[in-house]
């Protein structure tokens, strides 16, 4: 644990097999890694693949170690922002999503007025899903 590292807040998606359902994951994240996990969505079932969307905040080093730990346990870890998929070819470049997108992930480059997506900025609020008239953005969990 290092006090020098930055505080981060990341949204991640976990996928795990049924035998892992019993693991006290949230407890470990708090206890062993000093993190604050917040369950956004959970889909846990005794006999099927489970998935969970977690918002985690804490020191970056701790967060990275926790990620390693979860992977070591056999969990599949992905970043929620990567689940927001923007299809450049479907997008009509209208820009309708850009005023509702709170993080600036979907933005207009001026003066060309072309629309771009920066997944690193996306906070997966899903506002763009409602705003896009051609469904060029999709949440793929």
């Amino acid at each position, binding site marked *: 644990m290092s006090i020098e590292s930055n505080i981060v807040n990341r949204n991640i998606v976990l996928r795990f097999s049924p035998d892992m359902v019993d693991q006290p994951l949230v407890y470990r994240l708090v206890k062993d890694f000093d993190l604050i996990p917040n369950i956004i969505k959970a889909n846990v079932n005794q006999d099927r693949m489970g998935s969970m969307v977690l918002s985690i905040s804490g020191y970056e080093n701790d967060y990275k170690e926790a990620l390693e730990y979860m992977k070591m346990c056999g969990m599949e870890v992905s970043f929620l922002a990567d689940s927001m998929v923007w299809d450049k070819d479907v997008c*009509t*470049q*209208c*820009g*309708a*999503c*850009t*005023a*509702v997108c709170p993080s600036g992930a979907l933005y*207009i480059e*001026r*003066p*060309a*007025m*072309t*629309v771009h997506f920066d997944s690193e900025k996306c906070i997966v609020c899903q*506002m763009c899903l*409602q*705003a896009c*008239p*051609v*469904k060029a953005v999709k949440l793929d969990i």
Partner: protein
Amino acid sequence: MTKTIAEINEKIRAGKAVVVNAEEVIDIAADLGYKKAAEKIDVVTTGTMGVMCSSGAFLNFWHTKPKIKMQHVWLDDVPAYGGLAAVDCYLGAAEIPERDPANAHHPGHFRFGGGHVIEKLIAGKEVRLRATAYGTDCYPRREYEQTLTLQDIRQAFLFNPRNCYQNYNVATNCSDKTVYTYMGVLKPHMGNIHYSSAGQLSPLLNDPYYRTVGIGSRIFLGGGLGYVAWPGTQHAPADPRNERGIPLGGAGTLAVIGDMKQMNPRFIRGVSMTGYGVSLMVGIGVPIPILDEDMLAFTAVSDGDIQAPLCDYGGDGYPTGEPCVLGYVNYQQLKSGQVEWEGKTIRTAPMSSYSRALEIAEILKEWILSGKFELSQPVQPLPGQELYAGFLGR
């Protein structure tokens, strides 16, 4: 200096025409002045691609064996109007399937409708046709079902009664709840501002008095050739105008027509407006012949010269049918991404695609330069041409 359309066409045929788009002309006019620029430039191309309600397609299916006089027609479960003739129908862009939950759970998704069927056809995809009939001696068949593509349809043309609004409302929401409108999702307390015009690139803002665009004008429609068929529905040329002749409200509209078999899905898209319904995004480009200095001056219009009414689309505004204009903003402000309004910074977003509008103006330029597209003399002017009294009223 004056030129006729015939003279400009001569130059196009000789490969000598000078064609620029409605963005490029702004700087040229600033450099050379209107007079010199008018001598130099022959055609200015414009473009727009936005959601345009009041669009739809006339389709004629080949006669079936045995024959049917289709009374009710569906394409991919979207009803089309069959009360025309045996195998003709009109598919409206805003139509939704009968079983669509619409706004039963507000805001509805409106995933699919007439606009999407039109896009699928133009993209060459298969569509399911279903028709029922009461049966006659000459048309005995009562039911018909067939999967088909645009190629299998005998004639297919878009005929959009109202497209290409000259200018348009800019939408915001003064109420305290989010509203879902045809101008997009508007957040409460003026949380955002949406606008829907290509501004300085938009066709009728470059010819504000319809001096060159009229009935019969050949245009770019959805990637193919189209024509102005008539003044569009709700055409209102008498709306107030600024000193450059730019209307401060919607004003002019065009009814347009064009062969779907020439079109490209890049420029015709079905759209789903959350909580509102379905519609069609239509790409249109209109060439403006530079007949004289005034025409050049009109095409040199830039975003800062075009004001549009900022309207409240919240519950106490637009929906009531009462006046809802809060004031005026110009497209330079709107395109910057934010507008200062009564001490507040409000984010703006377009509903129409400026980059695609520019692409259309560029394609039209290429068509003209290559001699593939010649300008047409309108057979009849649009109402409103009589309002023209010279640029800046001179």
